[in-house]
């Protein structure tokens, strides 16, 4: 069978990232719907040991580009690795998760291969030689269903949307990709970790977000404490980011991040259209707001109209108690 899909697998600290396991599960299904198999690519330094796990997640062939030049992410080195892996495997559909790396790398590959590019897809199937995919535009205010030949297309898939699968034990067939001749002109010289206090909002399964209802930056700890109790990331509305209460990293909405966590808790957020656009695909939405007529309640599953200064500390304590009880 021919390799139909080439999935780019990301790793950090020697672990395959969860978003890549989701991409591998999606790639496996799309390849099978198209009557072919999935190949995968791992790029890095000393990463060959991940090949078995990648194969177990549905890759019939694992291409490996292992080189000093790839020790840190480099658009140029990685793009050449993908180009060569695509040539070697013959796969026409190139897939990656829409992570920071995916969103930097995938368009560069599309331009190199002169291939159409679909960003951040949230639904997909292969039918009669075409990829039928759904992608959001206008921060999710519109959903576009499009069709493109599977023989040549670059795709990124939104994290937290497609489920990952449990691996099956498997012995990988591998191929080696050479990138030693690439002369990158942009090099990552350092990675600076953000505070480890909370989970990054882009990767969080649960998000607790704060808005103007908090009245001032001095009250944001109420949100952080609930987030900590839930093991959640901290989000924020644009209003409080622009007011300087919290860094832009935390902003959810049209000029911030678009998220789809399992649980989204909006605290003191009225629900401006730009904010709703960034979190409306969350699986369960809880809203806490003083104003019972706030638009946020229209898209919430559970609404608590009331004083968040009374509710949040009690909720944090109750969550701690539940978690503590295991």
């Amino acid at each position, binding site marked *: 069978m021919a390799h139909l899909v080439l999935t780019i697998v990301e790793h950090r600290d020697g672990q395959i990232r969860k978003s890549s396991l989701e991409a591998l599960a999606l790639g496996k299904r799309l390849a099978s719907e198209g009557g072919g198999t999935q190949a995968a690519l791992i790029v890095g330094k000393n990463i060959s040991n991940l090949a078995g796990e990648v194969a177990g997640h549905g890759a019939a062939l694992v291409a490996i580009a292992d080189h000093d030049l790839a020790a840190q992410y480099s658009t140029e080195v990685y793009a050449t690795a993908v180009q060569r892996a695509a040539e070697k495997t013959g796969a026409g559909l190139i897939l990656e998760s829409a992570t920071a790396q995916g969103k930097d790398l995938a*368009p560069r590959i599309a331009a190199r291969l002169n291939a159409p590019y679909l960003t951040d897809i949230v639904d997909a199937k292969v039918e009669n030689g075409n990829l039928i995919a759904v992608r959001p535009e206008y921060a999710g205010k519109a959903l576009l269903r499009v069709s493109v030949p599977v023989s040549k297309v670059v795709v990124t898939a939104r994290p937290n949307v497609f489920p990952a699968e449990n691996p099956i034990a498997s012995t990988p067939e591998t191929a080696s990709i050479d990138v030693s001749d690439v002369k990158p002109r*942009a*090099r*990552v010289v350092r*990675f600076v970790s953000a505070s480890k206090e909370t989970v990054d909002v882009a990767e969080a399964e649960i998000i607790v977000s704060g808005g103007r209802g908090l009245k001032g930056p001095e009250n944001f700890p109420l949100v952080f404490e609930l987030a900590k109790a839930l093991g959640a990331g901290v989000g924020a509305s644009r209003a409080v980011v622009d007011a300087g209460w919290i860094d832009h990293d935390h902003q959810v909405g049209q000029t911030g991040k678009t998220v789809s966590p399992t649980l989204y808790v909006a605290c003191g957020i009225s629900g401006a259209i730009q904010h709703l656009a960034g979190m409306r695909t969350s699986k369960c939405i809880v809203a806490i707001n003083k104003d019972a007529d706030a638009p946020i309640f229209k898209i919430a599953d559970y609404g608590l109209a009331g004083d968040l200064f009374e509710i949040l500390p009690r909720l944090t304590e109750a969550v701690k108690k539940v978690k503590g009880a295991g």
Partner: protein
Amino acid sequence: MKIAVCLKQVPATDSRIKPSGDGHAVDLAGVEWVVNPYDEFALEEALRLKEKHSGEVVVFSIGGDKVEEAMRSALALGADRAVVLKDPAFTHADPLPVAEALAAMAKRESPDLILCGKQGVDHDRMAVPAMLAEKLDWPQATVVVKLEIGADGKSAHAEREVEGGHEELEITLPAVIAAQKGLNEPRYANLKGIMAAKKKPVAVVTAAELGLNPPTSPIQMLEVAQPSQARKNRMITGDPAQQVEELVRILRTEEKIL
């Protein structure tokens, strides 16, 4: 140094977006068109670099007649001149032909640096900056929150936002840099700038002059839909203690999240 800034117009972020009558396009009738918010950070950074290192800021855009308004506002803020590809076929083209058009514009101007917004808040593809860099065979840094140009004017230091932190990059110029919110705080135009902008040149070019073929797309649009996710809309009443107790019960036993 010579800096090019790519700037596009998009519907204002508070626009209501709905499908057109036939469900095959987005209905943009009556929306307010503004400069893409991320492009404002790109322009501001270019103006600051010019103030620090001297040089010239050229704005590139693609669009119909209304793009003139965006060009004038960029010139009022301090850009020196603008080049516009006026061709409706390119206004709504795929990112690849757009990147090819911008690359053709860049080749005529040979800037040391091209600044773009990290994404258009209309199509949300985050594609053009990386595609432009590839078409020029230049390095790139996307989602950039900090940028410094080396004293020699031939290198740059950039910080880009990634999950869980920042990547710091050393880049050889020329390069394409895509701006993220937080890179700077854009200025407002003053009256002097607005008056000066009237005299600044806006050059109009055609696709033929740039040696471009009409854009085509292998992507077939099947349907534009509005998101509809059924929500429970259940209000939890009572005093704060009762509300919290009920919410925790629901999240544990019904939603099975806790």
